[in-house]
């Protein structure tokens, strides 16, 4: 899956990681069990906050090149959040996903 990876705090939306701002690549792959596995590079400071709030993460991939924009939200698995300080690699898993197109919601 390609696009923009965002990891935010689920209470109020504070952004921990935004691949569009850091220019960092990420990998998002579907697992055999139907879940998802993410991998990206993050600083130790960012990883520390993500690990601290692992129980309350909103993980998104925004497909912003599509018109209208398609957003994917993932139900993150707190136990899967891990950081390899030596390589700066942040990994996390998600058990399910909701795909949504904001423009299709009417007010």
């Amino acid at each position, binding site marked *: 899956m390609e696009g923009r990876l965002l990891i935010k705090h689920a*209470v109020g939306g504070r952004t921990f990681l935004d691949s569009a701002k850091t220019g960092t690549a990420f990998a998002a792959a579907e697992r055999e069990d139907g879940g998802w596995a993410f991998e990206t590079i993050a600083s130790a400071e960012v990883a520390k906050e993500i690990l601290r709030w692992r129980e309350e993460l*909103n993980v998104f991939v925004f497909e912003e090149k599509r018109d209208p924009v398609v957003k994917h939200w993932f139900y993150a698995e707190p136990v899967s959040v891990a950081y390899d300080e030596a390589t700066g690699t942040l990994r996390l898993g998600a058990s399910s996903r*909701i795909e949504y197109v904001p423009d299709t919601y009417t007010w």
Partner: protein
Amino acid sequence: MITVYPKHTRYSHDHGWLQSNFSFSFGEDFDENNAKFGPMRVCNDDTVAARRGFGAHPHADMEVVSVVLSGQLRHEDNLGNIAVTGFGEVQRMSAGTGIVHTEANPSDDEPVNLLQIWFEPEARGLPPSYQTSSFDPNGLTGRFVPIVSREGGPTASKINQDLTMYLSRLPAGESLEFLQAPDRRVFLFQIEGAMYVSNAGDPTETATLQTRDTARITETPHLKLTTAGEEEAFFLLIDLP
């Protein structure tokens, strides 16, 4: 112990179309010393301009209650629920394993003022669900009317947490007493008017709430609430673990 949080201590923002007042740490107003009160995580006093609102966004593992105080709030979610509620109605959303929704003011000319309150659920990974319930706006005087509870009821949405939310109106010069089981908490939100809040077991422990003040109360299972001044007191009381 009765601790009053005057309204000016809230984190306040004016975005033009949205005026927000947060009682707890929320978003960029991060305060790890004010993150929760029991399972209560968020108490936002929002006013949204006509035809404006919050675009599609997700929630998970949170019980989200919206109490409309004036105007109308439209909810739409990925489960297919669409509802418009006004004063006298409550929206309860159990996010569970995930739900995406919008919240908007459908009115062409009237703002909506609502309290949005989030609670941690009793368990994670629950199936997502949505419910609206209603109460008689003219039936709040001199009594605690439950609007959200674990059991649900004729006037109450059902929530996945051991708590009850009540609304009440107290005419000038009147009092009500609230008794709860030991080792629980009370959260008070003074919607309108002013009120004295006392420990019925020790009347020297008294606080005063003005409009939009809140109080967090512990170790005080017997409260006496008395209207202060000549205006009716209208408040939200939450009985929490």
